[in-house]
């Protein structure tokens, strides 16, 4: 039964493919069957992990925590980090700053042992290249490989393995209606 359903989403598409209609999408589907050689980037992928800036865009997955200020930023614990060289584009970092929650970043920087983040968010007058380089290094070049992210409100721990954080929730914390069926 389940296999038959598996074919459901794809079978309808196969029907269309065999109808012989030459569309861009058909071309796309044929093309994606061809392969190109793997290159160094695949080695890079193996090593690739979660950039620190990710922390600026996430919070606790538990719905009840969203309203609480202490659910952001999530706290890094027992982390293993790696540095990966990334092309430095000063204007990019400068334009990124308005999106950064500075208080949160300060907390993260301290947890990761990054001493150089200033207390107050730099503005265009106080920003200089060394500061932009420091931020670049922390936000984009520092990668979290292993560890935990902990919510400051509910204490829930999210594990990070091979740079992939796991935000799936146990039944009693989840919000999915499907879990009740």
């Amino acid at each position, binding site marked *: 039964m389940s296999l038959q359903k598996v074919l459901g989403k794809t079978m309808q598409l196969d029907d269309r493919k065999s109808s012989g209609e030459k569309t861009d999408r058909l071309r796309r*589907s044929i093309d994606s069957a061809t392969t190109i050689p793997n290159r160094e980037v695949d080695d890079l992928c193996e090593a690739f992990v979660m950039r620190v800036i990710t922390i600026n865009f996430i919070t606790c997955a538990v719905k009840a925590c969203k309203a609480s200020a202490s659910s952001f930023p999530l706290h890094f614990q027992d982390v293993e980090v790696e540095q990966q060289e990334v092309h430095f584009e000063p204007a990019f970092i400068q334009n990124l700053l308005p999106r950064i929650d500075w208080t949160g970043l300060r907390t993260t920087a301290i947890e990761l042992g990054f001493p150089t983040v200033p207390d107050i968010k730099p503005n265009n007058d106080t920003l200089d290249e060394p500061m932009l380089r420091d931020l670049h290094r922390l936000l984009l070049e520092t990668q979290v490989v292993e560890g935990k992210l902990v919510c400051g409100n509910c204490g829930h721990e999210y594990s990070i393995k091979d740079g992939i*954080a796991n935000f799936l929730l146990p039944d009693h914390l989840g919000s*999915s209606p499907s879990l009740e069926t």
Partner: protein
Amino acid sequence: MIPTPSTSHVSFDRIYEPAEDSFLLLDTISSEEESAWLCRRFSKEIDQSPLFIVEAGTGSGVVLAFAAANPKEIFGRSDVLTLGTDVNRDACKATRQTVLRAVDDKRMGYPGEDGLFSRLDLMPGVDPGESGSVLEVENAETGKETHFLASMTTDLCAPLRARNVDVLFFNPPYVPTPDMPPLPPPSTADESSSMSKWEKFERDSYLLSLTYAGGLDGMETTNRLLDAIPEVLNPWRGVAYVLLCGQNKPEMVKERICDWGGGWTAEILGADNMQAGWERLVVLRICRDGPGAASPSTVTKG
């Protein structure tokens, strides 16, 4: 046509293989009309902060990779941050590889998988022997401001901070089914190598069921994502692209979104060129277009 990102490294035993629904999303966002709309909405003159692009339920990651590798063509700017989510940890791994390969392919001037023409063909007078370097120069900017942040194992947008997403993609499990597979518990996200053949088959079938089974009207998962949209999208410039099939009743979904108020609107795109087969696929574009939308974001410099 912008080439489809390569997914030759992905095992499709338990990850959804890119198909016409994925390709409709790619063609829709890269169409002349749509990218012109996106370029206007995300003009640097309005807001300089880099775009935060998220795909929920990435599967192979082909849609996110397409956006990450071609931001200039689609959004008119190359400074983008991308992030993918999927309940399947294997899909998370596949996604980061698909995204990084696509960005690298673009930078190296690979023609992609069309194999139909390379950009070289459009550049008369270029000695093919030197062409590699010419293309590298042409695409040198690619990847310098395009940063893939992470792949995360999660249900839809659950851990995303409010009002931050500029572009959200979702190709849902849209097939109507009598019931919904439950979401995996946290522990299943970890690989277990000690499975019997049968257990592995069961597990793969279950993971695949998550890619298509949509429950009532095929909308149960999509409805949960729609509910999250007003919360996660950047209220000023955010836009979401959600794929729907005819049985999802796109017109009704569209009306429902327009009833949210607060300037939220929905448009049905890609409907006229998808009439073959038994099911009609469309892309729903959702954004806020009321007064103040697409003006400088709430965040200010300093």
